[in-house]
């Protein structure tokens, strides 16, 4: 591309809204000074000024780039500070980075989306993309799982997804409570009994590494082709432009060659799930 501008400079953005999805997961709505258009699957680096930056996949609609939602689990220094943000606060964004899901290639095919835990966040952007082309998909299925009902994000919106005729959706929790009426068990338990043409169907998987690993193994067992399983890989990413060396997977850098990989691309490399 031959970028001569500074790859480390950021777009100034304002916090518009903070939604407390769960005690540990917040969604922050941002208004960047200039638009940061992205495609589903791509990620941005979000900076809390003077504290540091961390990578997130936007969870908002890619066709509405005037604002940007990021759904953030509190896990460390930067995300702690992100959770302290209030409307009006200033943050920085750079990006978008990485590749995206080849959604156009999914037309006429059966598509299964599997999201786990905070992996719901990037999957929401993917779902918006799939909803846009849903009339041309052979089928659209969503299978989601998280540890317990209190960890479920986007509750209101998800409940509307259940009303859609063009989506077959099942959510599970590892451990239910008195409010939970859906199935219990890890996400692989609701991958049983799918009626799909496994050889040609496409699966998109995002979630914690352990969930991605067992979901992938399950999908392979069901007959999915390893080149039809798309994984959103999580690695330590500092520069996001393929130079700092942190996010290597075999011969790839997750930030520029990914974060979306076909399982067939990376399966031969050791320790991809760690």
């Amino acid at each position: 591309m031959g970028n001569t501008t500074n790859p480390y400079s950021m777009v100034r953005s304002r916090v518009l809204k903070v939604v407390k999805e769960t005690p540990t997961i917040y969604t922050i709505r941002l208004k960047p000074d200039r638009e940061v258009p992205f495609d589903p699957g791509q990620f941005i680096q979000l900076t809390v000024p003077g504290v540091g930056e961390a990578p997130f996949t936007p969870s908002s609609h890619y066709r509405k780039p005037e604002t940007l939602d990021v759904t953030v689990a509190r896990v460390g220094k930067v995300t702690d500070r992100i959770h302290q943000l209030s409307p009006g606060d200033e943050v920085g964004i750079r990006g978008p980075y990485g590749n995206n899901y080849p959604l156009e290639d999914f037309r006429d095919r059966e598509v299964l989306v599997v999201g786990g835990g905070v992996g719901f966040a990037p999957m929401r952007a993917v779902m918006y993309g799939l909803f846009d082309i849903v009339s041309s998909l052979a089928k659209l299925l969503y299978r989601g799982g998280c540890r317990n009902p209190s960890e479920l994000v986007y509750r209101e919106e998800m409940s509307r997804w259940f009303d859609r005729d063009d989506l077959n959706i099942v959510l599970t929790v590892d451990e239910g409570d008195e409010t939970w009426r859906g199935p219990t068990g890890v996400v692989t338990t609701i991958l049983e009994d799918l009626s799909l043409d496994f050889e040609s169907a496409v699966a998109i998987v995002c979630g914690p590494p352990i969930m991605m690993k067992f979901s992938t193994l399950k999908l392979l067992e069901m007959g999915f082709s390893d080149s039809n399983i798309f994984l959103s890989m999580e690695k330590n990413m500092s520069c996001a432009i393929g130079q700092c060396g942190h996010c290597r997977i075999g011969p790839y850098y997750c930030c520029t060659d990914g974060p979306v990989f076909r399982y067939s691309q990376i399966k031969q490399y050791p320790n991809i799930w760690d």
Partner: protein
Amino acid sequence: MHYLSHDRLRQLLEKLTSSYSVFVPVEDGSGLQYVPYTSDLEHFDPGQVRAFEPLKLFFQRAREVVAQDYDTDLPGQDKKPVCVVGAKACDLKGFKVLDHALLKGEYEDPFYKRNRERNLIISCDCTTALDTCFCMAMGVKPFPEEAFDINLSPVEGGYLVEAGSKKGEALLEASSGILGEPDQDMMAERGRTRNQVAELVQANIEESGVPDRKSLEGAVRRMYDSEVWADEARTCVECGACNTICPTCHCFLLYDQKNEGKMERLRIWDSCLLKGFARVGGGDNPRPELWMRLRNRFEKKFDFFPEVANVYACTGCGRCITGCPAKIDIREVLGRLVSNG
């Protein structure tokens, strides 16, 4: 080819100080260190061996501010470019890796690029070898063949000089008044010195048993589950010296700080031996054990770079051997990989 006497080299460097920060190698008791050239500097020697510090430090700085607030300008661009005198072939080979890592992808590193374009490299043949030198096992000769602007070959009374770039040619043209004609004796002397140094390096290679490039093909992957890694990592103290001192290691970390009300983003050299190198936000670490990180260093150098850039990310400079407080010797590790343990 030209001839340049010792005095004339000083004259040339004197002239270059107006447009460059000129650095020359000086022996300080612990090795050759690059120091700023000044006219009252009594002694410096462009020859000898590679300096203690890797050449990369003039191109990818160990610590630099890369962004301020929301400015899109590149900070720190008012500095003079650097002229490095006495760079050695092993360090120049490092550019093959650095250029690939920092310039050949979808994005270019504008800081590195600017330094590559503006800095001037006056390299020099090695005139001796350290016990740890094994460049020839990595396909590098102990005299520069490429990636320099001007190369010096020490001969009696001065240097044989040749240009290796347009910038070097222009500089020699502009300096024609101080250049002389080389004679046959000088050419013969250059050949003799080069052969002598090559013999020293070859003897090192044979003594240490470091394998050649051919036999290293696929060795890391073949030995991925070997006990060699845990065994070699026993004494590692996770200091990261092998990374910082390496002419091809380029991994870095960004961090932010506030400075006088401004936000600064800094870039510092990082080390893949450090525990947190690949740890992700939630705390998961793909390489929790030190031996895994040691293995990763070899994977990157002898598996990743051959695959993506057709080059081993090792130039045989031997600095990591000298720099390691645990006495981990890359030549022995490579030897064990090839001999299956």
